[in-house]
């Protein structure tokens, strides 16, 4: 029984991936250890205030090196780096406003804000994008091309610039007319994209209509309630708590960064899925099934299932990209996550904070990749059932 468990392909697959990601973690953490020690620009030199006398500089440097343990041999430093890491000690924040709080505490406090953007965007864009892309492959001619170009355009816009445009159109005190026009264009493009891809029956039309209607109402409410906030996580005068006011306030701040990331990632999935499905629809088994007289729905489900697998392998890379994108989007919207923390740390030249932020990002990416791989193993019947293809 035990033996069968361990030789089951699914368990074997997961085990292999676990070993791989542990290896990646080891390499990346070693890399983080080496960066400040090998790169030009000694962190200790940058901590010494300008205007220090030469003698003072030398003494301060020796003192700081002793404090950070940089005077010990490299191997000993490496061992204590791991010892500290395993105890969850990432050093102390040097930058202003953080008063020597442990870096790990600060980073863990900011992490949920970043994940609150990354996880919903990743999941929603994956499902919506692939759905739109697959539908776009079935409709022929102009409508298909229109969906294709809309999604390509959405995915190829520079995300940071799109964030600025959204801020310009929605958050600044431009006249309501401009705002409405902008909302109309954005909402219109999204609704048109959906309509073009979807209309094939009264039920779906109704569903799309309801979604579009809800979106329009939401947008109008948002416009009516005043413009979107230009940045931050909460309004300055609000004390965050677990109540409705804070929730709505946070939601209004959340809307724009979320929308920016969602539109851009959804476009990417949609254009990829369209070409994958088109390719599957052209392949032999579908043509054969068509000759046999299978219903359209059946054909679609066959093609879609084969087209989604390569998309799933793209989820890894997409996650890695999305984390980086989110960090920059946070800087634009002043969203209080890891990205904004990284920018603050960079500007304050706080090395422990910079390395700590990157370390946690790396760990999140590795865990995320591992989860995606496990999900892939579940979806691929060749791995799940253990009967190789």
């Amino acid at each position, binding site marked *: 029984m035990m033996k069968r468990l361990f030789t089951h392909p699914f368990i074997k697959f997961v085990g292999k991936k676990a070993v*791989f*990601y542990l*290896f*990646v973690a080891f*390499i*990346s953490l070693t890399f983080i250890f080496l*960066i*400040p020690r090998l*790169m*030009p*620009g000694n962190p200790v030199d940058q901590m010494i205030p300008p205007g220090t006398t030469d003698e003072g500089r030398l003494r301060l440097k020796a003192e700081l090196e002793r404090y950070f343990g940089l005077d010990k041999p490299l191997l000993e430093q490496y061992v204590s780096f791991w010892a500290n890491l395993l105890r969850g000690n990432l050093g102390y924040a040097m930058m202003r406003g953080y008063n020597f709080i442990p870096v790990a505490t600060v980073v863990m406090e900011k992490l949920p804000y970043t994940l609150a953007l990354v996880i919903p965007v990743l999941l929603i864009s994956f499902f919506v994008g692939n759905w739109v892309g697959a539908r776009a492959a079935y409709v022929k001619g102009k409508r298909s091309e229109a969906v294709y170009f809309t999604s*390509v*355009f959405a*995915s*190829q*816009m*520079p*995300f*940071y*610039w*799109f964030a*600025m*445009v959204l*801020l*310009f159109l929605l*958050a*600044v005190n431009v006249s309501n007319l401009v705002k409405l026009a902008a909302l109309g264009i954005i909402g219109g493009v999204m609704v048109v994209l959906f309509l073009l891809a979807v209309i094939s029956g009264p039920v779906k039309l109704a569903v799309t209509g309801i979604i579009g209607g809800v979106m329009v109402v939401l947008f109008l409410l948002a416009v009516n309630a005043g413009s979107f906030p*230009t940045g931050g996580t909460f309004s300055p005068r609000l004390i965050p708590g677990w109540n409705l006011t804070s929730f709505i306030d946070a939601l209004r701040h959340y809307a724009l960064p979320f929308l920016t990331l969602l539109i851009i990632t959804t476009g990417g999935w949609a254009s990829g899925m369209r*070409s994958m499905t088109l*390719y599957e629809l052209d392949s032999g088994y579908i043509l054969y099934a068509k000759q046999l007289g299978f219903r359209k729905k059946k054909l679609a489900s066959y093609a879609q299932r084969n087209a989604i697998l390569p998309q799933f392998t793209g989820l*890894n*890379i997409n996650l*890695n*990209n999305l*984390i*980086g*994108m989110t*960090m*920059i989007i946070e*800087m*634009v919207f002043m969203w209080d996550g890891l990205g904004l923390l*990284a*920018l603050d740390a*960079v500007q304050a030249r706080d090395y422990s904070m*910079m*390395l700590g*932020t*990157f370390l946690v*990002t*790396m760990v999140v*990416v*590795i865990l995320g*990749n591992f989860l995606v791989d496990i999900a892939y193993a579940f979806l691929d019947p060749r791995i799940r059932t253990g009967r190789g293809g």
Partner: protein
Amino acid sequence: MFELLVRSRKFIIGAAVLLAVILFGIIGSMLTRDPLAYSTRFVEPPSSEFLLGTGNFGEDVLAQLCTGTRNSLMIGAIAGGLATLLAVLVGGIGPYKGGLMDETSNAFTNVIMVFPMLPLLILLAAILQQRSMFLVAALIGVLSWPWAARCIRSQVLTLKEREFIDVARMSGMKDRKIVVTEIMPNMLAYIIIVFVVSLSIAVLTEAGLSMIGLGPDPSTNVTLGSILYWVMNSTHAALPWILWWCFIPPGLILTIFLVAVFVMHAGMDEVFNPRLRRV
């Protein structure tokens, strides 16, 4: 091969737009004023004298836009070239030799692939204080090759098994000669695709890095990202988003450029990838 490309509508349209963007950068930067010439006419909206208005220090936005396009493309070309070179080395030699070499290079690629590129770039760029355009290009190039190496690896693996390579090997050709005379000509189109896509990724990345102030020094280097940086850090407007004439054009140029590369790439894919061939 190139006759096929010319028949692809997507490729032609994409290439034409790409060429227009390149010409805009090169010729435009010759015709316009000095992009770093400051004046006292700060942040003025477009007028007949300054076609796209003036920036934070009273500089001509149109001139900045042209020079920025040129510089961004240059950084992209250096970074893309470097990434392509690394990808060909890592993704080409290993699989061709096979065995342990292949496994090592593949494992190496897969490990680097997990590294999130943008956060790593932010970290490295922040540590390197003096950043020239070349340094930023080199950083981006060194970090952005893994996906390309993977593409090239799969291509080399299929090419290696073809009969004409076997024939060449049996006729006693040296490895180096097989690579130069048999494999390279068949890979050339593929490598060009990889280069063009690497270039577009590098341009997008550079502008993002520069926008948050981690690109080449924004006070002496004009790139598309540095224009965005000065908008974000403007001292003339409480909310930088009001300076639409400063930040809409560079983003539009970027969007046009990226869409053109994507469409061109899609066109090339349809020609070279037998799975998608429609021409």
